[in-house]
């Protein structure tokens, strides 16, 4: 069986009708006991399993997914990766992630199609320009790449934008992160799953965790639709369902679940060479490698576990896109969908021990955790392996809500999530 992906193996397999490729990952029956069980087979859960095996040598690990790999938000997002945050804690976290993304295709031997075409946050008012200048300064001080563009700078990289004098969203300029861009979401989930499986991790799909085994006041494993599975430590990476699982473990979280929706157009020739966000409407867009315009925007206004969006929000998002790019009026929308995202009051994730001993959290990524998958996996793996925070995850502990040391990125970088 051929496992390694390379030009040589592709040619060799081509000669024998591509019949010799090994399955990307194995699907074993769950064992009765693991060192670590990870609940949730999205990007964060799968990356955690990979780094447990790779960095910490802990391979007796299972990832338990109730549906299919990446069937949650990891396979539903608009694939923008960036680290343009304001606070040093956030830049350290997202920059760790972007650095890992830059090496990920090689690291996993799986093409995640990272395309660093740049991420531009547009400004429409002098006040927004000042906030952007502040953000760009903060990013540069925190050691990541950022540039402040004026109208001409925007025109140069995005000629298709609506520069007409009566535009509702005039482009006075914007904050550009040249290293931002997009990556292929399914490939990130599948690449981590394949690499983790090769190191001995059990990937178990169609198995729902229904409860925790709690003995002596600590978590000793999980109850699942395929029976009880004992574990020394359990990692929870279930995004929009974090509150549901926390309730079973006996605590609450500062999380509210909302639907976030997105849509794509029919494919067209290359027209938009950047990921762009419009502060005025909250709408954003990029063009996929297939040519589709990938469109996203703000949250639906109502707490929800229904994996679909409401019409008024979609209308608002599309109205914003058409004002930004009048030419897109002719496009037909191909698909629209929603995911359930885990929103935290300060728009920063929750990473750390939970109130139940042996149970560790990775959630609260809200509308922006795809970009954070490599870092979220690294940090949860560190917690599960050592029982201790990594320096980068420490500020994101649950304790910040009692101490008041919030990391408010909605206020910091103006990113609305």
């Amino acid at each position, binding site marked *: 069986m051929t496992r390694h992906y390379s030009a040589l193996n592709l040619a060799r397999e081509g000669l024998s009708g591509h019949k010799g490729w090994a399955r990307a990952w194995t699907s074993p029956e769950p064992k009765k006991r693991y060192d670590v069980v990870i609940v949730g087979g999205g990007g964060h859960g799968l990356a955690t399993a990979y780094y447990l095996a790779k960095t910490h040598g802990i391979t007796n690990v299972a990832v338990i997914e109730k549906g299919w790999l990446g069937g949650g938000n990891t396979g539903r997002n608009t694939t923008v990766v960036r680290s343009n945050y304001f606070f040093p804690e956030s830049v350290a976290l997202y920059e760790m992630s972007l650095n890992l993304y830059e090496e990920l295709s090689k690291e996993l031997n799986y093409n995640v199609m990272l395309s660093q075409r740049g991420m531009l946050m547009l400004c429409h008012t002098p006040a927004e320009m000042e906030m952007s200048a502040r953000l760009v300064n903060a990013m540069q001080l925190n050691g990541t790449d950022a540039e402040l563009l004026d109208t001409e700078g925007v025109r140069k990289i995005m000629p298709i934008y609506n520069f007409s004098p009566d535009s509702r969203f005039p482009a006075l300029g914007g904050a550009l992160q040249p290293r931002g861009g997009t990556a292929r979401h399914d490939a990130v989930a599948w690449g981590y799953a394949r690499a983790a499986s090769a190191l001995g991790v059990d990937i178990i799909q169609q198995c729902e965790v229904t409860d925790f085994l709690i003995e002596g006041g600590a978590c000793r494993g999980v109850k699942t639709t395929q029976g009880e599975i004992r574990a020394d430590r359990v990692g929870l990476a279930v995004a929009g*369902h974090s*509150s*549901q699982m926390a309730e079973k473990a006996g605590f*609450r*979280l*500062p*999380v*509210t*679940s909302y639907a976030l929706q997105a849509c794509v157009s029919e494919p067209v020739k290359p027209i938009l060479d950047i990921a762009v966000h419009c502060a005025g409407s909250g709408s954003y867009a990029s063009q996929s490698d297939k040519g589709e315009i990938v469109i996203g925007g703000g949250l639906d*206004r*109502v*707490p*929800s*576990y*229904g994996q679909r969006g*409401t*019409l*008024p929000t979609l209308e608002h998002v599309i109205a914003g896109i058409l004002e930004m790019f009048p030419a897109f009026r002719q496009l037909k929308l191909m698909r629209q969908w929603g995911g359930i995202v885990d929103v935290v*009051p300060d728009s920063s994730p929750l990473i750390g021990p939970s109130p139940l001993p042996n149970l560790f959290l990775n959630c609260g990524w809200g509308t922006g955790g795809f970009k954070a998958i490599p870092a979220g996996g690294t940090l949860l793996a560190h917690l599960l392996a050592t029982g201790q925070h990594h320096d980068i995850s420490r500020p994101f502990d649950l304790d910040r*809500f*009692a*101490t*008041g040391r919030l990391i408010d990125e909605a206020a910091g970088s103006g990113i609305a999530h």
Partner: protein
Amino acid sequence: MHIYTCPFCGPRPETEFHFGGEAGNDRPDGDVPAQAWADYLHYRQNPKGAAREIWIHLTCHEVFVMTRDTVTMAAQPGEPIPSDTTDRGDA
């Protein structure tokens, strides 16, 4: 478009309403530990299924309670807030 029912104005489109938080999240009284404040300010039940919520009808400015299913989005007619809670502390 979802239709919610204001107890004062009747059925109206969802865009006329604003979500005001989970019902029953009462502000703690007196000198309480930091975690009790954190619970009140930030921690949520975030129920899947039936949810009791505070809503505001933006056009008439009335605040009311609504039971809504967070999976199906089905909404029961809104209920006026009982007067013993609205009387509290109106100085």
